């Protein structure tokens, strides 16, 4: 059978062959940073069927170049389009950075586990993000802000390399106004920067939250996550209440290709979001 742009059916491709993507139309490409852009795509007439949970990812395919797993960074409460913030780190993401409105990409998904935003109802949520790690957390932040009255304190600790490499800068101001307490820190800065300079773990050390009634969501480079988890644990957040989002090579997202194995877990199916406790032993094993 032939899948064409307008005739593509989410249902059909899922039951037939999970490796066959649906074709989405590029709506916009917004340059966020030198090496990072936000791609918004849509599948007219089909989007209302697309439901995802914060933290899940899609497999995005660029014609002839390849396919990569990219976390969804859009608002889980909004339908009509799919939003991905993508960092240009290789040939596929590089090719995607040249997409223009009207172009088409292949989309499979959503896949994987999600941030436990339901389990966090009635609790404080401490979100620790590093660099591009803010992108997979954005749906969780938006979900919590959309249901602001269901949560206690909402805190974002965001670390980036330098002030010019901070993602979603203007939007963070809007989040502040909607009731998110944001603290930002950078590794180094020019004198004009008035915020924190230092590592994100330092914000946790001096943080003001109730560890026993806190759920912590952590996403960033793996080293940063290891240290952030330590800082959270030092601040008396039980490790059963810390969640991390992991990253490994991935080719199928279905559990077939084997590449994303991390100890006995498949990051694609069991993750990418894990309770820290579940993967703590593998985080401590080198080259696992």
């Amino acid at each position: 059978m032939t899948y064409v742009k307008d005739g593509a059916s989410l249902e059909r491709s899922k039951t037939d062959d999970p490796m066959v993507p649906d074709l989405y139309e590029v709506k916009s490409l917004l340059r966020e940073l030198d090496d990072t852009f936000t791609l918004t795509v849509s599948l007219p007439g089909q989007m209302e069927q697309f439901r995802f949970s914060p933290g899940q990812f899609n497999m995005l395919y660029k014609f002839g170049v390849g396919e990569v797993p990219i976390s969804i960074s859009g608002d889980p409460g909004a339908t009509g389009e799919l939003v991905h913030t993508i960092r240009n780190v290789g040939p596929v993401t590089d090719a995607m950075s040249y997409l223009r409105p009207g172009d088409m990409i292949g989309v499979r998904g959503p896949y994987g586990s999600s941030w436990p935003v339901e389990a966090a109802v009635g609790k404080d949520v401490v979100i620790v993000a590093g660099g591009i790690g803010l992108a997979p957390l954005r749906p969780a932040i938006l979900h919590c802000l959309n249901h602001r009255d269901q949560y206690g304190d909402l805190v974002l600790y965001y670390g980036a390399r330098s002030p010019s490499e901070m993602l979603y800068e203007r939007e963070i101001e809007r989040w502040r106004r909607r009731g998110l307490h944001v603290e930002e820190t950078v590794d180094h800065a020019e004198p004009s920067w008035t915020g924190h300079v230092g590592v994100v773990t330092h914000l946790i050390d001096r943080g003001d939250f109730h560890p026993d009634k806190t759920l912590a969501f952590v996403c960033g480079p793996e080293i940063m996550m290891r240290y952030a988890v330590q800082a959270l644990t030092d601040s008396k957040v039980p490790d059963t209440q810390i969640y991390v989002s992991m990253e490994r090579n991935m080719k199928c997202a279905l559990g077939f290709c084997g590449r994303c194995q991390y100890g006995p877990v498949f990051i694609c199916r069991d993750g990418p979001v894990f309770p820290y406790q579940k993967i703590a032993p593998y985080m401590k094993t080198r080259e696992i």
Partner: protein
Amino acid sequence: MSEALSDAKAKSPKYALNRAMLGELIELLSKEGHQLIGPQREDGTIVLNPITSLEDLPVGLEDEQDSGRYRLKSIAPDDARADSLFQTTVGPQSWRRYLFPPRQTLWKARRNGAGWEIDADAEATPKYAFIGVRSCDLTAIAVQARVYDNGDYTDPGFTARLGAAFIIAVNCTRAADTCFCASMDAGPAAREGYDIALTELAAPGGEVWFVAEVGSRRGADLLEAVGAGPAGAELVAAGEAAVAATARAMTRSIPADAAALLQRNPEHPHWADIAARCLGCANCTMVCPTCFCSTMEDVTSLDGQEAARLRHWDSCFSLDYSYIHGGPVRRDVKSRCRQWMTHKLSSWHEQFGTSGCTGCGRCITWCPVGIDITEEIAAFAKYQTTEIREEA
């Protein structure tokens, strides 16, 4: 496999058939549109090829296998087994090359004005008849069936090819030195997943007889169609005795606590010892009947108008396998050895509720430096025992 008999199977009679009847049977399968695949001598080994008749099978041959060694030899003419068809055990190939081919085109796409469209026209599902599937390999097929139908997602190709296949299993009446299916509870007798299971017996005069067990209605129908009669008690007993003797003849084994042993020892110094010998060549994973790892390849036509996604077998021993932007995660051969062996014998249980090893012994035979998974696991067990003793 065809519709299973389940309860009826236990009550179903065992059939006796001779070589001519078996020949007729596979001819019938061929006429029904099955492509016959069976063991065949090629390049000094036994490979799984399309065959047309029993003559293509390795008649009168047996294999000698040891770590890093494989030889075929003729059975002496005065040996009662001289006309036997199934005296070679397993060769370097397994049935996964037919159920999940080493190279598959997933889909093609072509540009269409401003956009492009996908042509997912799948090739027609081949209808195979597998002749001579050993118990270890039947187990491997079942193991892979869990991988490719994992509760959330199904690989339609694997599932369709397996569903369409007619499977004639062979209970082993001979073990290679590298065989250890008995310790993996995967043989040498076929238990399920077949249409017909044969036990090959050579009468003193040299005539070859088969005791046939039926696993499906179609298997029974075919046996009836070629005039196979009920097997006498003596023949059945001889078959069972031969298979039981095969189990007893196996000298290699994997300890029952292998999964826990490896789970406890990700940093064991013996990994470095294995890595010092391992070439990282990936042979063990290529010959393994349960290995399922794959990678994708994207190709485009020169004019950029057409693209295709290909999937081919991959191995956890390749550096590229663990690549994340920046570099491979498992840089050291040691960590790749650990991934392979721990996955096979330990994490597979957590992932799929079964071992990833069926005791076929292929990884032992085809390792160019003779690394023997049964010896390596024994080394872990031994160090472990010493440690416990020292503590006591």
